[in-house]
């Protein structure tokens, strides 16, 4: 029988279970970080410390890995993740204008979150919907064939 924590509710326990499951596989750090980010939404120091202890990897190394990969974040993210695709296909079809428009409307820069924690803007690489270029995803929703004027209306959908 596994000795894993049974409470399940507590995020720290959940992470402990993840660490236990991965402890003996080679190169466990990155899979554990993925899972931890799923659980906590981001990777603050307390989470990285827990992983450091659990996997016996120094916090410095973990922090080095976390800051290397753009998927991982040490800051909490907004409720709605706006991903503006800047893949080549989207870029040549004017994705930059769409990005600028989002920045202008929300008054934040790429990688930042609005003060009400509602929106974060990310510039992402090809999402593989090149046929719809330029493409923006907001959480699970995909918006394709956009022009800059569409941005305001899209944001209004989430403002309520």
């Amino acid at each position, binding site marked *: 029988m596994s000795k894993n924590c049974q409470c399940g509710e507590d995020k720290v326990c959940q992470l402990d279970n993840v660490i236990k499951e991965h402890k003996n596989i080679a*190169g466990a750090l990155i899979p554990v970080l993925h899972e931890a980010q799923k659980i906590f939404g981001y990777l603050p120091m307390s989470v990285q410390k827990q992983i450091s202890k659990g996997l016996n990897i120094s916090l410095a190394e973990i922090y080095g890995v976390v800051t290397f990969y753009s998927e991982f974040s040490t800051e909490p993210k907004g409720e709605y993740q706006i991903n503006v695709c800047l893949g080549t296909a989207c870029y040549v079809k004017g994705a930059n204008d769409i990005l600028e428009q989002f920045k202008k409307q929300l008054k934040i820069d790429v990688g930042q979150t609005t003060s009400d924690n509602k929106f974060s803007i990310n510039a992402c690489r090809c999402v593989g919907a090149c046929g719809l270029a330029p493409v923006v995803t907001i959480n699970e929703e995909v918006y394709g064939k956009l022009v800059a004027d569409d941005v305001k209306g899209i944001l209004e959908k989430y403002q309520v």
Partner: protein
Amino acid sequence: MHIYSSHVLVCSGTTCSSKQSILIIDKLKDGIKRKKLNEKIQVITTSCFGLCTKGPIVVIYPEGAIYSNVTLNDIDEIINEHLVNGRIVKRLLSGDNNENNSYETADFFKKQERIALRNCGVINPEMIEEYIAYDGYQALGKVLTDMTPEQVIDKVLDSGLRGRGGAGFPTGRKWLFAAKAKGDKKYVCCNADEGDPGAFMDRSILEGDPHSIIEAMAIAAYGIGSDQGYIYVRAEYPIAVKRLNIAIKQAKDMGLLGDNIFETDFSFNLELRLGAGAFVCGEETALMTSIEGKRGEPRPRPPFPANKGLFQKPTILNNVETLANIPVIILKGANWFKTIGTKKSPGTKVFAIGGKINNTGLVEIPMGTTLREVIYDIGGGIPNGKKFKAAQTGGPSGGCIPASHLDVPIEYDTLIELGSMMGSGGLIIMDEDNCMVDIAKFFLEFSVDESCGKCPPCRIGTKRMYEILKRITEGKGEVGDIKTLEELSETIQAAALCGLGKSSPNPVLSTLRYFRHEYEEHIINKRCSAGVCKELLDYIIIPSDCKGCTKCIKVCPTKAITGMIKEPHIINQEECIKCGACLEACPFGAIIRK
């Protein structure tokens, strides 16, 4: 000479014969005789029609009706309805008589040859049975029960298959090195970290045909003597990840992964590893470092991965599309494979065509197809009557190919000669509205963002190149800039640690090679003909459209606009900072950017 009014042709090829066509002929002749039509109708035994899957086939002229899957029970109906009453028996008509409405018949597919994509859009990727139904795992079975590891590698070598991830290294040679390397443990890795912006063929294969990758990796493992594989896939591909997980589980459940596959000594396990958003992890040594749980930084070679790769053990790394070719090569043979494509680059290549083209999407073409065929015959040409300017291949490591080279056949070596490269298969089409300096800047910005930072030529060199390009597109270019860009390119190409770093100046070099005049125009004339570089454009008021409402005057932050109410206004170009506020404020569309 006797003239018959009707001819009934019955196929007696091997396939049809095996399906009772001889009996059908006898029954037809018999029935015709009983109806006393034997003077008018001739029954002819023919050789194969080539529609064997639908046999037995009966064709009746002059109508040209093709009846397929004919059985003895159908004969009476054919005689009574068709030959006596002249009514075609619709239910027996072959599909080939129907109107063609499937995608296979669209022009888009006519010049394609689908090997890697053979099952994409055909089978349900979440059902291993459908993969098996389309000959899935037959190659693995054949390899394990009927071939030695040496024979497997020989076959791949013989096929001339080259890595589809970009550089085009012969796959068989890679396998051979790893097979020869000494090691208690060896690894097979699949590079599914497709990162080129605008490329998504690997994702499509993973989503549409995940088992082909699993099967190919098992074959590779058998060839080199490995028992463990890793698929390194982008976390940004959630559907691919989900389907791979399903596929791995199904293969395990069915005993196609795990211990003693096909009751041989061969065992193979497969693990999925997710990338985490670092383009550099597409570089083979960086990918392995990442699987090891570290920052995905490339390491110097030698030692080569075939000798010291993942966890310092002999390792091969193949790209998704490369692997997708393997089972077919095993089943159909190296010679068959070599009949497709060109001598130096056999087989096909999948391209993701995007940008300014009518038919964006994924195509698989035989190597040696020209760019013109891809763009115009398959891609349907450039939309809105615009002029083709350049095609970008190879992503941030590749380059732009101008119109003058549209008829060059696409293969590894020709693209390199043109200063580009095959890359993973992103093919972005650009028209006259795209500024080539801006495109070069876009790729350099990508390279700066994605540089791992380990070696100075890439870490600082690409940054400096980007800074220069940015300056040029902002109208602050200086006369020596082109020379400096060339110097820096040379340094980075010579001195960077990994292949990605070395190739990062390519977008600049290739645009300088073919579109140097655009750079010069930006630097000397401070103009961007394509109308992309905002700082190089002028805001102009069209006097005839201006109603003199003064709205633009009010929003202009530098007081660059002057004019009396109800009279056309003027923008003083010296004062204008090109913020665009006036353009947004004008209710009459009288302000344009040129």
